[in-house]
């Protein structure tokens, strides 16, 4: 009965979403308050219904109801409870349901926190989000129903969850990522609502800023978590692979980063409005495209796409309606937008615009690389696919000017600036960064180009942060008084920029300076890796709930001192007969030591892989700093004040700052 209840809730949610999409938008267009008032209750009701549907599916997993096809495919009675719950979003149908639930959650949050916004705006925003929900719910109901039963012939036990997904990282990774993806729908809905209303003033930028930043924070943490998971779980020490799934989350992140900055400029200085709207549309469109490219399997295999033409066509139709429709509205409505501010060629505005363009180009380049197999197939060029070499060449080439501008911006004033004046102010820092980077390169003595490049850029960004801080404290009575006066959003910006520097350092140092050793070891043998000595002391069989494992024991010595013991495992999962490598890691701020157990070889020996990874933690540390910066910016009380003032200042184009 319960799966049917879930199915029923899903259908009802679909009906409610249809009302939420049509009635308020019609009401806003014709100015009827009663119709607009439908938006809020519909948003709450849709969220409640989808929560119920999600709870029903979770219940089916918890009680091992293998009559439900989706449960039978992705769970097993031996699976521990926490993984049975996370298995709900472990495959296609369930993750779509999570997507829909997240969207409903964001919609309800907008409905809840928009009391002070004009009625028409709220009606339009919730209506646009309703349109998106209708698309997703019909995709769920018509092509991917998670509640489909296997009656009367159902299996006695399920096929088990992919062991790769049986891990803490993967319990929290998809929900965080979806919070980010779907969160961009709010900025998107605000942009469309502003276009529909014909009011592209600073007010809409101000309203969507906190929402966009929250979504961006979730996406940042989600991507970092995915990268961290790949690092410790896949067993070969990589942290980024440029595979379509990762690219799908990275493209909206890049555009979203541009959007945050562009929104700030639009709000404060009244320029770039049309560009900001386009970025808001692009960020969400890329989230959609990414979700579907990944979910449809179109990039794993062209054939798989063609083999399910219904899903493929649906996806394309939905994308066409949402993205095509919004771009059409953009083309028709954005023409009347006038900039209220003005700026000259060399100014902070230009710097920000350039960085925005670089971020957008970056997303485009990744999109091309990701879609190339599909494009070449359509044109009949034969199989062309670009792998990491393409991305690893193009991406850093774009990051160099981006990072340089990021640092250089600190010495740039709003509106206008002279090149000579900029150089006079920045030359000392520039020289200092160059000298420090050169010193670091000489001291390390390895891979001079990459090390010099990244350490200069990272120092340059940090110098920019420092100068910015100094500028803000200049007029304060004392250092401490100035620091206290700094607003949370200023702190947030400084922290996020420092995070980028940390992340870049980690990424490049790990890539060029890592050591990798493929070894053949018998118990009792030792090897030297970097400054450590690693002793393989033996193996033991251990039993987990749904797997058996061989557990290796490795003592790590530095000199004569025993630092720690590492226990890498090789697991064999019973039900789907999959084997998995559980790496053991000695983490450190400056470097990781990473041991992964391979296959048994003859003569009692084992294949063992050992990695020495300098600064690898900095990648995720940097991402956390960025997200923390975003969170600080959102918590700035200015936004709450701003909401109170928003109504009064609507339409006037606020000149804040």
């Amino acid at each position, binding site marked *: 009965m319960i799966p049917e209840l879930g199915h029923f809730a899903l259908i009802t949610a679909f009906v409610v979403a249809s009302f939420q999409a049509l009635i308020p938008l019609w009401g806003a267009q014709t100015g009827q308050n009663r119709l607009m008032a439908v938006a809020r209750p519909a948003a709450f009701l849709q969220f409640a219904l989808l929560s119920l549907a999600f709870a029903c599916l979770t219940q089916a997993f918890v009680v091992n109801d293998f009559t439900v096809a989706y449960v039978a495919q992705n769970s097993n009675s031996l699976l521990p409870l926490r993984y049975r719950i996370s298995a709900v979003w472990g495959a296609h149908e369930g993750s779509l349901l999570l997507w829909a639930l997240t969207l409903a959650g964001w919609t309800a949050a907008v409905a809840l926190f928009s009391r002070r916004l004009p009625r028409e705006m709220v009606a339009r925003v919730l209506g646009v989000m309703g349109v998106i929900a209708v698309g997703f719910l019909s995709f769920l109901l018509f092509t991917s129903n998670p509640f489909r039963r296997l009656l009367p012939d159902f299996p006695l036990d399920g096929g088990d969850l992919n062991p790769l997904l049986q891990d803490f990282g993967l319990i929290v990774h998809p929900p965080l990522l979806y919070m980010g993806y779907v969160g961009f729908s709010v900025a998107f809905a605000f942009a469309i609502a502003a276009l529909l209303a014909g009011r592209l003033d600073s007010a809409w930028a101000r309203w969507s800023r906190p929402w966009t930043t929250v979504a961006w924070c979730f996406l940042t943490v989600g991507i970092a978590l995915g990268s961290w998971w790949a690092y410790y779980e896949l067993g070969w020490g990589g942290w980024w692979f440029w595979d379509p799934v990762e690219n799908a989350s990275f493209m909206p992140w890049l555009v979203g980063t541009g959007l945050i900055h562009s929104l700030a400029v639009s709000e404060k200085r009244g320029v770039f409005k*049309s560009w900001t709207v*386009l970025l808001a*549309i*692009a960020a969400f*469109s890329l989230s959609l495209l990414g979700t579907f490219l990944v979910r449809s*399997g*179109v990039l*794993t*295999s*062209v*054939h*798989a*796409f*063609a*083999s*399910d*033409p219904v899903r*493929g*066509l649906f996806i*394309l139709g939905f*994308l*066409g309606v949402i*993205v*095509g429709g919004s*771009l*059409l509205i*953009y*083309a*028709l409505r*954005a*023409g009347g937008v006038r900039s209220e501010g003005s700026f000259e060629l060399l100014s902070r505005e230009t710097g920000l615009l350039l960085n925005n363009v670089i971020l957008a180009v970056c997303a485009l380049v990744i999109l091309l690389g990701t879609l190339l197999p*599909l*494009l070449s*197939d*359509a044109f*009949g060029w*034969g*199989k062309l*696919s670009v792998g990491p070499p393409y991305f690893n060449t193009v991406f850093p080439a774009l990051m160099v000017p981006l990072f340089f501008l990021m640092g250089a911006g600190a010495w740039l004033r709003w509106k206008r600036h002279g090149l000579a004046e900029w150089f006079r102010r920045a030359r000392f820092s520039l020289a200092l960064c160059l000298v420090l980077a050169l010193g670091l390169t000489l001291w390390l003595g390895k891979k001079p180009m990459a090390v010099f490049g990244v350490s200069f850029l990272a120092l340059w960004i940090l110098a920019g942060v420092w100068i910015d801080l100094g500028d803000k404290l200049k007029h304060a009575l004392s250092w401490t008084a100035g620091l206290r006066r700094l607003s949370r959003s200023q702190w947030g910006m400084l922290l996020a920029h420092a995070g980028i520097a940390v992340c870049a350092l980690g990424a490049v140092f790990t890539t060029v300076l890592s050591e990798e050793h493929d070894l053949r070891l018998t118990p009792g043998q030792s090897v030297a890796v970097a400054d450590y000595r690693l002793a393989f002391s033996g193996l033991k069989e251990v039993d987990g709930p749904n797997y058996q494992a061989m557990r290796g024991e490795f003592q790590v010595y530095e000199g004569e001192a025993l630092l720690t013991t590492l226990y890498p495992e090789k697991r064999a999962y019973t039900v*789907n*007969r*999959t*084997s998995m490598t559980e790496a053991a890691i000695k983490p450190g701020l400056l470097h990781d030591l990473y041991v992964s157990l391979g*296959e048994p070889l003859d003569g009692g020996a084992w294949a063992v892989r050992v990695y020495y990874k300098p600064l690898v933690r900095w990648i995720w540390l940097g991402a956390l700093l960025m997200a923390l910066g975003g969170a600080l910016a959102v918590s700035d009380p200015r936004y709450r004040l701003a909401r109170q003032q928003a109504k009064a200042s609507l339409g006037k184009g606020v000149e804040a700052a």
Partner: protein
Amino acid sequence: MNRQLFIPLLVFVALCVLLYQGLSMDPRLLPSELVDEPVPAFSLPALDGGATLGAENLKGKPRLLNVWATWCPSCYTEHPYLLTLAKEQGVSIVGLNYKDEPAKARDYLARLGNPYETVISDEPGRLGIDLGVYGAPETFVIDAKGVVRFRFVGVIDERSWNKELKPVLDRLQAEQD
């Protein structure tokens, strides 16, 4: 009206047309670059964990090289017919397990039966790229000298076997005898 504002829309429409083409085109019609060329050199593990296999393992007699994977729904459709070919008609088939997890692939064969003499495990997909594989399933007919003589894209069933693949294999058999 500002014309340049339509540029994003036009780009998107072009993208949609491409995606639509990708959806509706028949990939079977595309020839392989490799026909009448030897199988590219490779060194990959056998799926059952034993020896390392190379291009020389494909020499000796005419056979099929069948590209498959557990993520490919059409492979499940094709599988029973491959079993029939191997068991009843004595066709020699080598499997190329393409961009797949070996453990899943082993499980697939254990559950559904194994029509292959040997299976090459191409987890990174390198040999697949060298062969110009579009996806799975795909089947190459290889002669006794290890030269690719024919390429077939899609599911092998009774009709396509008798019409397209069998004549080629029979001819190669005759050449050898």
